[in-house]
């Protein structure tokens, strides 16, 4: 059975944000063309003539809108050349407010795009400036409105735990997000990553983020957004199927630099460097930098961690069928170290409570 999910990584941005450690860079001349050619070659080599029928497709980055409308046409053609789509396939595209144009939206509408995920991050101009974003709050508002007017489901990414972010400031951003017609809201806590301008920032400036997250857990459901994953809230029925597939251990193909694929129990990661990625493909080889196949026990533990990201949690029956009774029990006993208020355990399985989600990382690190 071939994978039903495809992720395409666009490794370009108009500018690197101060906090970002993802594989992306400001494109040099000719790099976008090189990328599109290499991507087509990757599909050729990877699929070997097969045509997977996709349930979900996600174009992320970087910044997919860093590709011009013309380049987007070429990208769409490449994907259509290699894949079929199921009738109600979910196709998501990420967009940045500053580079999203009407032409982009038109191309997407004419193609199969159902969701647009916008990198809003904040509705506070000072915060946006601090992060090195190229847009202001108004830009984000316009982008959301434009995407909505094309009939897409629109989601937004928000960041909390920013330096000197006040609780009130965060509350205002959340309130605005909840009043803009979005169907999906993702919340990410700022992490200071090695190799970024913010790596040397004093963590004490950030606070523990607990209150910000707890507020979102309280507020968003009251505005119609239910939490379905540790970082994701959605109007019921509008959850991202693509992301849920990751947590449910579904298979997926990842294409583009630094993208990860998971097929036939093997997880592999492409070269992060565009040059290295393209060179490998030119030589006719898959551009895989590293891959891993986990032992049964390790993959069981990882599966439990992934499942606990979702509010639905670990389903006992499925889990035992796949990994055996012993592995399930070892997850249960790892959970026992924690206060009962953090999780629920019953015949159906194990789930983190709202309170548990707030300290999920510690729980996962115990299980892994």
């Amino acid at each position, binding site marked *: 059975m071939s994978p039903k999910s495809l*992720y395409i990584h666009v490794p370009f941005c108009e500018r690197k944000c101060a906090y970002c450690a993802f594989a992306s860079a400001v494109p040099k001349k000719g790099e976008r063309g090189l990328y599109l050619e290499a991507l087509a070659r990757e599909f050729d080599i990877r699929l070997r003539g097969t045509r997977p029928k996709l349930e979900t497709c996600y174009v992320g980055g970087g910044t997919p809108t860093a590709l011009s409308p013309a380049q987007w046409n070429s990208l769409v053609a490449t994907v259509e050349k290699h894949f079929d789509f199921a009738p109600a396939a979910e196709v998501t595209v990420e967009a940045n407010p500053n580079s999203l144009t009407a032409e982009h939206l038109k191309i997407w509408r004419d193609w199969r795009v159902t969701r647009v995920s916008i990198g809003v991050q904040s509705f506070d101009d000072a915060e946006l400036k601090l992060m090195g974003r190229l847009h202001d709050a108004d830009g984000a508002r316009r982008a959301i409105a434009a995407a909505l007017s094309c009939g897409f489901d629109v989601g937004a990414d928000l960041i909390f735990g920013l330096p000197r972010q006040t609780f009130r400031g965060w509350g205002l951003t959340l309130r605005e997000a909840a009043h803009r017609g979005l169907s999906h809201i993702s919340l990410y806590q700022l992490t200071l990553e090695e190799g970024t301008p913010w790596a040397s920032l004093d963590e004490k400036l950030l606070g*523990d983020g*607990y209150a910000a997250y707890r507020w979102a857990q309280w507020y968003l459901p009251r505005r119609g957004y239910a939490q379905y994953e540790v970082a994701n809230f959605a109007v019921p029925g509008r959850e991202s199927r693509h992301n849920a597939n990751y947590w449910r251990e579904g298979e997926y193909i*990842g294409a583009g630099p630094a*993208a*990860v694929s998971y097929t036939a129990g093997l997880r592999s990661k492409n070269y992060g460097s565009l040059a290295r990625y393209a060179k490998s493909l030119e030589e006719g080889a898959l551009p895989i930098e590293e891959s891993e196949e986990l032992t049964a026990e390790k993959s069981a533990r990882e599966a439990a961690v992934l499942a606990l990201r979702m509010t639905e949690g670990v389903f006992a029956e499925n889990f035992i069928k796949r990994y055996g009774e012993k592995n399930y029990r070892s997850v249960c006993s790892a959970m026992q170290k924690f206060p009962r208020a953090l999780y629920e355990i019953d015949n159906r399985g194990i789930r983190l409570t709202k309170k548990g989600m707030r*300290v999920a990382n510690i729980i996962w690190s115990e299980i*892994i």
Partner: protein
Amino acid sequence: MKYDNIRNFSIIAHVDHGKSTLSDRLLEATGTIEKRNMKAQLLDRLEIERERGITIKSVPVRMDYKAADGGNYVLNLIDTPGHVDFSYEVSRSLAACEGAVLVVDAAQGVEAQTVANSYLAADLDLELIPVLNKIDLPSAHPEQVKRELEEIIGIDAGDAVPVSAKTGEGVPELLERIVRDIPVPSGDASAPLQALIFDSVYDNYRGVICYVRVVNGTLSAGQNVRFMATAQDYELTEVGVFKPEMIQVGALGPGEVGYICASIKTIDEARVGDTVTESARPAAEPLAGYKKVKPVVFCGFYPIEREDINQLREALEKLQINDSAISFEPENSAALGFGFRCGFLGLLHMEIAKERLSREFGVDLVATAPNVVYQILLTDGSVKEAHRPSDFPEQVRIEEIREPYIKLSIFMPDQFVGAAMQLCQEKRGSYSGMDYIAPERVRLTYDMPLAEFILDFHDRLKSCTRGYASLDYEHVGFRAANLVKVDVLLQEEPVDAFSFICHADQAYHRGHAVVGKLKELIPRQLFEVPVQAAVGKKVIVRMNIKAVRKDVLAKCYGGDVTRKRKLLEKQKEGKKRMKQVGHVSIPQEAFLAFMDVTKSEEN
């Protein structure tokens, strides 16, 4: 062979009065070491001795000297440590001598160890040659120091030798005085062999090397000898003298100082203080030995990496061979795992041992807070010795707790008397006397619990007297005191490594400091963790470590689950390095910092 040309002597002095420098000058003046091969503190062989400028081990050296009278003499100098913790080394060395050179700094005058070491020498009927050192200093006042010597120590200082170990001035005169005044060793070469082991070291190739002083008879290579304490016989493989490196000689006769090797593997077979005699013709009586020194300060040594426990054991065994005053036995702490409870003669002794373990043997270790040895009178009338807080029985079974006391002498300029007395009072000292040893110098004596002394007394005395005080102490036995064991509990469970003993009046104060420090050091857990200090069942301090709150929700991007898993695994690994006590993870640093807090913070 004649032995009346031998002179055996030690140099005794207070710390920093120039003992090691004077030794260096004597070695030069007798040509034992050529000047170009000279380095400072030549006899202090341990790296740590040279670094700290102190002497820890006694080191003997043999010097050939042609005196003004034309005679050739053999001078055996046995260098001795100056710090009070090592006074047992001093007394051992002195027992191998007929005389001692008492060095006093002509600028500073008589200090605590001057007195203590002089008394040690006097007890052994040694001839003392007083020497006033540093007379080249402008601040030297030799006449007053002579008066101090006469008044405090009670020796005739009229013919004290003025020298400058720095410039070498007066050294030839001193050598003449040594030949003239140090008694000729008495001994009978034809009598049955009697040789005193005054020290020993371990050598990887030759086994235990015993430092000996022959009293009667003769030692020679190939001879069969008996160690009288163990009644074991050995064949001597090597006999030699110190010049100062070990040089083989044919034989050692009465009065001579040297070393012997006999393929001895463990220190127990060749105890310091034992008498070596001849197997074929044993002496009737052993020589007067030494009292076995009893450790008074204890602490636990634990390897930082658990699997290094055997390495630590081997290192301690080797260290013990070179320093028989160290005792150790295995112990097991719920918090720190397997380690050793080690006994020492004092705090400096403990620090030196710890440092030597890590430097010479490459063992990284955690030391628990030091404590003294306690005697506990139980309700059934028996007496139990406690080397650690966990040795304490339940409160109801305790009739009385006794702790070791010392008699403390402090020498200082009189302007600091007030400050020093205040410190002594605070440390539960009881005043025993004060006298003027010079118009502006005072000797203050107090009885004080050893536990208070080892805490941080020395450092605090130094700071409140601006470094002008010197001190010495002797043990004066055990006295009953109102002591309690304070337990520290995490989540209602006592953690043995954090328990400590203190006076009932200080229990709250110290408990508060310890609990406060732990609250700072133990990272937040997923639940609230109460940290308590308790005496028996009674909780006297309680603080809470608040529950951890939000942890990072890293974005798991584009299905890169591997990266996320590795991050989680790294976190888990970090947690493993912490000590798990119940559900609480305690970082190693908490155990270390706990020591600091018990040492100084509650002042």
